[in-house]
């Protein structure tokens, strides 16, 4: 047998002892996810499929997080449609405003994801759950509908790129810098149709939150999924969240990979992706003076407790530069409460930042902080496409919470600590 970790999960999910890259399979699904943008479209397809009830009301998860709290009347109608469906179908895991969080932070936190599962979500960042050793990928609404109707969907078994992480990150470098560096190397389509399989002794030095950030952006290299091996940290996380019994898969020692990439974590610098593609990366020491208007800290990429802790460490006792707007949006209610109790909110408020309820809001230019013409933002989100956060002539620079916070204070893109070309070479 020469299977990658992803291929092993697939073999099990379609009841075979072996699968190979390029093969088409029909796999059983453990979770089918949708949000307030993609679920209405899936509902229509579900109806056209003449499906009546979902295959398993515990395995369909619906998270209205994008335009909530309802942005306007049209969003309200859309959310109403989703709510009616969820109540009608008695969906166990439907989360109303008040308990909702950004889906990709919420599902792991609620224990809905476990290692070895096969998960599809009508949202491209569903790949986040690979951090827990699950196969998870983004699909469209028709796929979501088919998944809800049958509990199965089709996949092409992917090839994989092996990403070996070694060493330990310097202070102020985090998961975001790892994944931006990797995307810079692979390009935004460098892993299209393929898995990114992370291995190596550097993984033990990454927190779960680092791993979520890294897996979250696998799609930004075009990958089908990104996946981490299951270690003690993963098991501890799964236990704490109350997840189902993990099924642990490991790649065979002779598994075949289309490409290998090595990253020594100790050599990384805080990294920034320039507009308008996540692959346009620069190490902080190569970034010229760029004046900014807004800073956004949050999202499914970097809205977890670790991220807020790092931002608070940078903001502590300092003030946001006059003229810069800082929006902090914790990804879930639980994270919100934890950050509040840890005293981070006082730090943010003293610095002059605003704290938003959990929502996707500004990340997709939806609401709660849209950019005007010509404005520049440093965001801890995952996409910097044209018009992503507002006006088509606005610009988004992707970075870690540490860089975002320091930039907010200085008013230009900057990282805490000293990063000079000489020191890093």
């Amino acid at each position: 047998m020469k299977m990658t970790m992803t291929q092993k999960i697939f073999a099990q999910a379609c009841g075979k002892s072996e699968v190979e890259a390029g093969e088409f399979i029909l796999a059983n699904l453990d979770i089918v996810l949708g949000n307030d943008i993609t679920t209405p479209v899936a509902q229509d397809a579900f109806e056209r499929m003449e499906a009546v009830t979902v295959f398993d009301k515990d395995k369909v998860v619906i998270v209205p997080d994008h335009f909530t709290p309802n942005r306007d009347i049209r969003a309200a109608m859309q959310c109403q449609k989703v709510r009616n469906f969820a109540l009608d179908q008695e969906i166990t895991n439907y989360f109303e405003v008040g308990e909702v969080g950004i889906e990709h932070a919420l599902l792991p936190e609620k224990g809905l994801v476990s290692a070895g599962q096969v998960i599809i979500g009508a949202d491209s960042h569903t790949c986040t759950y690979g951090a827990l050793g699950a196969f998870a990928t983004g699909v469209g609404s028709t796929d979501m509908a088919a998944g809800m109707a049958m509990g199965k969907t089709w996949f092409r078994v992917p090839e994989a790129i092996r990403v070996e992480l070694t060493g330990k990150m310097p202070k102020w470098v985090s998961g975001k810098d790892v994944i931006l560096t990797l995307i810079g190397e692979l390009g935004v389509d460098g892993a299209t149709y393929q898995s990114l399989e992370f291995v190596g002794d550097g993984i033990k030095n990454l927190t779960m939150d680092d791993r979520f950030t890294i897996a979250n952006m696998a799609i930004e290299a075009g990958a089908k999924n990104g996946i981490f091996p299951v270690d003690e940290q993963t098991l501890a996380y799964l236990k704490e969240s109350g997840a189902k019994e993990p099924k642990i898969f490991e790649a065979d020692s002779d598994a075949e990979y289309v490409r290998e990439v090595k990253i020594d974590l100790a050599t990384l610098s805080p990294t920034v992706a320039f507009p308008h593609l996540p692959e346009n990366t620069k190490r902080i020491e190569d970034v010229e003076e760029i004046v900014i208007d807004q800073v956004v800290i949050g999202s499914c990429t970097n809205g977890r407790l670790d991220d807020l802790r790092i931002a608070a460490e940078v903001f502590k006792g300092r003030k946001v530069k006059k003229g810069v707007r800082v929006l902090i949006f914790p990804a879930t209610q639980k994270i919100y409460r934890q950050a509040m109790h840890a005293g981070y909110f006082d730090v943010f408020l003293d610095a002059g930042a605003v704290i938003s309820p959990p929502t996707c809001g500004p990340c997709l230019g939806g609401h709660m902080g849209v950019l005007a013409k010509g404005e520049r933002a440093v965001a801890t989100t995952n996409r910097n496409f044209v018009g992503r956060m507002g006006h088509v002539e606005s610009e988004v620079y992707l970075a870690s919470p540490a860089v975002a916070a320091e930039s907010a204070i200085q008013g230009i893109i900057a990282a805490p600590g000293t990063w000079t070309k000489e020191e890093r070479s």
Partner: protein
Amino acid sequence: MNQAFCYGDHIDTDVIIPARFLDTSDAKVLGGYCMMDLDPSFVEKVNPGDMIVAGENFGCGSSREHAPLAIRGAGVTVVIAKSFARIFFRNAINVGLPIVACPEAVEGIESGDSISVDLTAGIIKNETKGCEWEMAPYPPFLQDMIDMGGLENYVKQQKEKQNV
């Protein structure tokens, strides 16, 4: 006259249909905003039967099925690109928007050229320049799905089988 509208590499779903318009899933309505952030004149100039021709990684970014829906809603019948992003590829097949990966054809087509595509015969013709290309067939599994009329019909058939 089926006109080609040519665009570059990495055309992402945020420019195909910006997120601010995602509060509807009506293909016609979405079609009215298609490509707006990249080429505001597109929706004025496009006619039913026209084609989008693009470079590498067309449809990258979000999983929104609104992207192929908007393209279809604008009247476009086929997208030809050098390559497609994974989720977009899947969505297009699932919603019945024909997409063709053919780098050679993309190189030989300019905006405004008159193009015809015969999906069954697998031929792309540039009527303006007088050249044609063959396109690679889909893998059998996908061809079956397309023949069945997409994923919706596939599920319907499966459900019927279960009920019998």
